[in-house]
């Protein structure tokens, strides 16, 4: 399976290289662009890996010589707003679990780039189910576990895959951190430790800009990264499930003025007004998250409640410690759709809204001229469990053509 796909990718790359100006036309009975209303009997024209035109088949002429792909339903390539695949591997043994280092509870300097395995089977699994862009990297479980990045689910090296090498800094509040470290052992202690390091980072940033170069402190990767969070360059992606921890995350962001993205947020429905008032976006737990530990209060209706409250959000596949080793946002969105969110908002939560939240909406997330030609072709309603993902196209290349 893996070898075959790699071969496909390699061939695709060679072909694209040889036929630089190749044109691809994807025609389907229904096209959901995530940028407007449903398009019946539509065509997406692709040239050089980019979308050139999207419109009704009656209006968009397919150029002679174009490769034509036909299908029932087309959506943009799916964007998984938060996962750990590529760092967390399929085997679930120490040697393929790189999403969390437990040497110290605050290690924002750890880069996702240095640990991402683009040939990981779980990356392939997601790709073949239509996920073409992932926000992946360090996982929950530490006060600051490390950085995240945004990548395409193709490429044989991380450099080929990456869209944004440094996306956010993954932080976690709540009792889960205590499972991985001697200290913090309580919520309050964890917050105190984070605040102490953020204060250090403030001072470090100030000293690094002193006029007298002699007086500048030596570079410190940890404080440097936290300083970038404080400067607004890297948002803090704070995993906080209980209402207590969500409100604490908002309090920290207010105190230090850093950009915050709430992650997980099982009890978000209890503090909708508080979240809405800050404009902070939410990367919501997988809809079917197991109800134990920190996610025990999760509700199937939270996505709908966030949407109704006007809070920007996207749906994630999250981190799975056991079987199954990853979730798939296509399926999580389907369950959210059926529990009050509805089709179009659910599709947006795993395409354009996720892309906006991750700062990559100029490249991916919707079918619009100028964007990357990342498309998924289905043999029916994408959210029906019995529908198959039949073709996946990334950057104009067919990377999967087995219905699954």
């Amino acid at each position, binding site marked *: 399976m893996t070898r075959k796909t790699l071969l496909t990718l390699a061939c695709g790359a060679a072909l694209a290289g040889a036929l630089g100006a190749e044109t691809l036309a994807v025609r389907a009975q229904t096209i959901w662009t995530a940028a407007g209303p449903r398009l019946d009997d539509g065509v997406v024209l692709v040239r050089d890996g980019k979308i050139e035109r999207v419109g009704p088949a009656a209006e968009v002429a397919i150029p002679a010589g174009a490769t034509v792909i036909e299908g029932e339903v087309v959506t943009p390539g799916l964007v998984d707003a938060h996962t750990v695949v590529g760092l967390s*591997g*399929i*085997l*679930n*043994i120490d040697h393929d679990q790189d999403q969390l280092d437990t040497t110290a509870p605050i290690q924002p300097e750890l880069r996702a780039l240095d640990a991402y395995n683009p040939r990981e*089977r*779980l990356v392939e*699994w997601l790709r073949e189910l239509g996920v073409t862009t992932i926000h992946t990297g360090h996982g929950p479980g530490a006060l600051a576990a490390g950085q995240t990045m945004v990548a395409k689910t193709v490429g044989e090296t991380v450099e080929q895959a990456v869209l944004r090498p440094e996306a956010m800094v993954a932080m976690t509040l709540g009792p889960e951190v205590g499972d991985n470290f001697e200290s913090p052992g309580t919520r309050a202690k964890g917050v105190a430790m984070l605040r102490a390091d953020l204060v250090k980072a403030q001072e470090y940033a100030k000293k690094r800009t002193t006029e007298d170069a002699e007086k500048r402190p030596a570079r410190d990767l940890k404080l440097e990264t936290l300083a970038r969070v404080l400067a607004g360059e890297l948002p803090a992606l704070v995993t906080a499930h209980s209402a207590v921890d969500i409100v604490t995350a908002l309090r920290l962001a207010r105190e230090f003025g850093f950009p915050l993205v709430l992650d997980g947020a099982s*009890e978000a*429905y*209890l503090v909708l007004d508080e979240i809405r008032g800050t404009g902070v976006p939410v990367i919501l737990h997988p809809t*079917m998250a*197991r*109800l*134990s*530990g920190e996610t*025990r*209060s*999760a*509700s*199937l*209706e939270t996505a709908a409640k966030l949407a109704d409250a006007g809070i920007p959000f996207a749906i994630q596949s999250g981190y*799975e*410690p*056991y*079987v*199954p*080793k*990853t*979730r*798939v946002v296509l*399926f999580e969105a*389907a*369950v959210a*759709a*059926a*529990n009050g969110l509805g089709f179009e908002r659910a599709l947006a939560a795993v395409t354009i809204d996720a892309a906006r939240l991750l700062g990559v909406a100029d490249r991916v997330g919707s079918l619009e001229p100028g964007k990357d030609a990342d498309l998924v072709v289905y043999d029916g309603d994408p*959210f*029906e*469990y*019995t*529908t*198959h993902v039949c073709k996946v196209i990334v950057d104009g290349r067919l990377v999967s053509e087995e219905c*699954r």
Partner: protein
Amino acid sequence: MSFATEKVDSIGRNEGMKRRRKRNETRARAVALALSTAVGMLAAAGAVAGRETAIALTGARLIPVGGPEIADGVLVARGGKIAAVGATGAVRIPRGAEVRDLRGKVVMPGLVDTHSHLGRGSGGDRSAPLQPEVRVLDAVDVRSTNFWKARAGGLTTLNVMPGSGHLLSGQTVYLKLRDGGATVEDWLLCADASRRICGGLKMANGTNSQRQPPFPGTRARSAALQRGLFLRAVEYREKLARAGADAAQRPDRDLGLEAMVEALDGRRVIHFHTHRHDDIATVLRLAAEFGVRPVLHHLSDGWKMAGEIARAGLPASITLVDSPGGKQEALDVSWSTGAALERAGVDVAIHTDDAITDSRFLLRSAAMAVRGGMSRAKALAAVTLAGARMLGLDGRIGSLAAGKDADFVVLSGDPLAHVTRVEETWVEGRKVFDLARDARYLAGGRDAYDRDADAADHRIDTREIAE
């Protein structure tokens, strides 16, 4: 039925003002008599008995399972049993029946989950890898609100199992999610837990049960330990047979070997957790050696072994998860396993293994099996009648047929559609889940399920609860 009498006693005491006491006691005795009669009938019928009004569901699309769908049907239930099922016009609705118009709805049998870990029921401890004497029914908490997840998912019968961290973690228990439920006895499918067989046996091979001694460290050691236990059970059975009616010759009672003899005799079903192809082959080898017919559970590699399983004539109960991995033996798990087994002629059930998949999503698992190529009819049977067969309860549950328990679900639409909701779940003629009243058990949320129950679940080693 002591619990019923106690209940009446306490009612008597609560009302007990002294001068009315005698009258109350008389009344209490009468109520007790009536109740114990009712409870006696309950035990006999395994249902809420009495001359309750018949209920007639009319106009729904009926999916009886085991027979063709009925586009516009009638289902009549009375006394906890299904009295009649058929097309509109072909079934007489009894005079005085409570008639419910269910046009636009779909009615199918209550779902049967052959593999669940709901209810905090622990099995064996760390003292030994084989503990056939341990009963999960002595530990299961019927008041755990987590059981509402099952009702919200349309489940009516569960096989609650101890975990897979042992080669044999104990005896499983078959439960009906009846209305109320003060003690586990209220939910049993057997008459008397002390004397009757109330569940199966949970065995496992592969990696979950490999640990520090006295647990096995390898697959070969696992198989050797399991064979040793079967051999002791065979000897024990021979001693019992030789002793015959002569009590003096009988061996001392051994609770574990008694359960093993029940398994050898085919009266107690072995539920065997097994994932990798070679582990599956080992179970087939054990089954052939000792003449037992285990139900094979999980079967991550089932699609590679469909022919072998079919030739062995063993049934399969499978898990459908959204991705492979998490452990080495689940690397090749596939949605096509159900289809491969169906093609080979194997009887297939689909289970939740809650908390591996959530009880609210068992119908989704059936749909995922269809995604993997299984036929719609077999996928629907896989969450109802096939599971009932694997628990030896198909004479009583698993399909909509006259004479069977009135266990059914009312769905808002097609059972495999993602927007379909379980609107009502009925057990033995009584509604145990009503979406209009119990929506929070479908959605979940802060107060939906026991916090302490979940905390307890969380403390358990993942291996204990998982698969």
